[in-house]
């Protein structure tokens, strides 16, 4: 065999590459032997999206990644520590000067199309808004629920800037019979089919009209990062983050509950009435998740701290409660036998998470778990066990726990 052949890729490797990509590699036989095509180099999440190295990648096609509790310590979540949840493929080659948002639908009085410049001419509003994935905590359900196995890090509270959705809806005109606003994004379905939307959800007209519901073009004072919806996204704080469509280019004012992708069936729905673990639930008995339940995180210290001779520890974190306020946060160091009240700050604005802190004293050396438990303004508390089982594994708001050793 001539040595020149060996310098190029083997046919079997080329076939494997083509298999992965799902298409033949044109001129593939001239690929250098150890060269991995760019499309296959999928381990570059953190560099590609400027993410904190402590972000955990759950899925690389589509991209899904979550934070860990200790990197969510910032009061306002920076882009580098914000979870990534995608249902489809991130759009490429976005031309901002050509980007438009069209508002239409059965219940729209007119159809209007806005450029980004048009949108920026409306009054600008900025709010800190909590976005949590409906499936955050899914990995604790038994029997397991399918999907990305989020633990605790699919939550963020960034500062979002943009135009109120209600201002746009008023500009277009909303008919009396309006029920829902559905969004359409530019992300592509995993199958590559242009006829399919990976996700097209939305919110009832009442939520759309709330003053904090934004069509955002800024996050933390800058352009929204690509992976989080550049150049435009809907932000409906306190609701499952899937309601906040990214890469937004169209909104439909509907005279019925929006019927886009992942609105129907069992997606982002829980049983309307409680069911036993593992029970089959018919689609018609599944109800759409709206406000997220009360929840909290201990963001300092990181779990696993060994205190040595110290017997006290300052702890802190955030608490949030969907559409509601958090009224109190407690911690326990004795597995829920006794609870101590924490300091709790008011939210920067409605739908922003609240910061809490506490000073823990340990009575003696040993192994401890610190549990945090928030209570919302209607008296609902976080459970210590995983809450009601549901087929898709949503809404796990069981209290967060960290491990500590003293002595």
């Amino acid at each position: 065999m001539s040595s020149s052949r060996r310098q190029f890729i083997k046919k079997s490797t080329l076939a494997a590459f083509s298999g992965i990509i799902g298409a033949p590699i044109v001129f593939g036989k001239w690929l250098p032997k150890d060269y991995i095509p760019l499309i296959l180099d999928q381990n570059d999440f953190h560099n590609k999206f400027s993410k904190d190295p402590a972000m955990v990648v759950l899925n690389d096609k589509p991209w899904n990644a979550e934070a860990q509790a200790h990197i969510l310590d910032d009061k306002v979540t920076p882009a580098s520590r914000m979870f990534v949840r995608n249902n489809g493929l991130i759009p490429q080659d976005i031309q901002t000067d050509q980007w438009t948002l069209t508002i239409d639908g059965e219940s729209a009085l007119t159809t209007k199309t806005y450029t980004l410049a048009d949108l920026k001419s409306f009054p600008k509003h900025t709010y800190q808004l909590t976005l949590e994935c409906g499936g955050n905590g899914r990995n604790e359900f038994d029997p397991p629920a399918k999907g990305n196995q989020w633990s605790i890090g699919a939550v963020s509270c960034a500062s979002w800037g943009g135009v109120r959705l209600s201002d746009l809806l008023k500009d277009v005109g909303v008919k009396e019979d309006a029920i829902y606003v559905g969004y359409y994004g530019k992300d592509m379905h995993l199958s590559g089919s242009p006829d399919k939307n990976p996700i097209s959800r939305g919110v009832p007209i009442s939520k759309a009209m709330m003053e904090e519901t934004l069509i955002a073009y800024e996050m933390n004072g800058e352009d929204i990062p690509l992976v989080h919806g550049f150049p435009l996204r809907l932000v409906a704080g306190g609701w499952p983050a899937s309601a906040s469509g990214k890469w937004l280019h169209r909104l439909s004012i509907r005279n019925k509950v929006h019927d886009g992708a992942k609105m129907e069936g069992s997606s982002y729905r829980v049983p309307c009435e409680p069911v036993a673990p593992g029970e089959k639930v018919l689609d018609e008995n599944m109800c759409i998740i709206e406000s997220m339940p009360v929840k909290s995180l201990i963001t300092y210290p990181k779990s696993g701290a060994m205190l040595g001779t110290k017997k006290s520890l300052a702890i802190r974190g955030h608490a949030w409660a969907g559409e509601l306020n958090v009224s109190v946060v407690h911690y326990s160091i004795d597995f829920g036998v006794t609870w101590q009240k924490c300091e709790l700050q008011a939210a920067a604005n409605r739908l922003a998470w609240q910061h809490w802190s506490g000073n823990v004293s340990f009575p003696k050396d040993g192994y401890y778990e610190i549990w945090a438990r928030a209570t919302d303004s209607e008296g609902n508390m976080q459970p210590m066990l995983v809450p009601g089982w549901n087929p898709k594994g949503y809404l796990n708001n069981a209290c967060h726990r960290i491990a500590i050793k003293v002595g």
Partner: protein
Amino acid sequence: MDNKQYIRILKQVVVILKAAIFSLILLLVLVMDMGYNLLKKEFNNDRTVAAERVEAPEIVNGVHVRTGLVEGEGLDLVIQNCTTCHSSKLITQNRMTKTGWQSTIQWMQETQNLWDLGDQEAPIINYLAANYAPQKKGRRARLENIEWYEME
């Protein structure tokens, strides 16, 4: 030499020539076949070596390196059919019963443009059910994988 004699000799010559040509063709075919077999053998050797060189590092400690999928019967089919549209991580992070995997495949066929898997469906489901089966977690697991560190 009369005409008859001439024709007889000519016939004999034709027979000899026919035999010679036939032998020559036979010899040629034999030589070509031998050469082809030799070539084929060498080619196959090369392919085997190439295959080993490429595939050997793909499985380490029972795990397929690129996808993270565990080694097992049906692995190739799963890689070919399941990781074209989505990441293998969607498989490795999930646990389902045979029925669960089956209905997931059905859901992908009905709504996500997954093709008909034909004869390959059974070995694919068997692989998934055998290697990614649910485990009991209870109502709340103990804290695990704690990375202990000295606090400043």
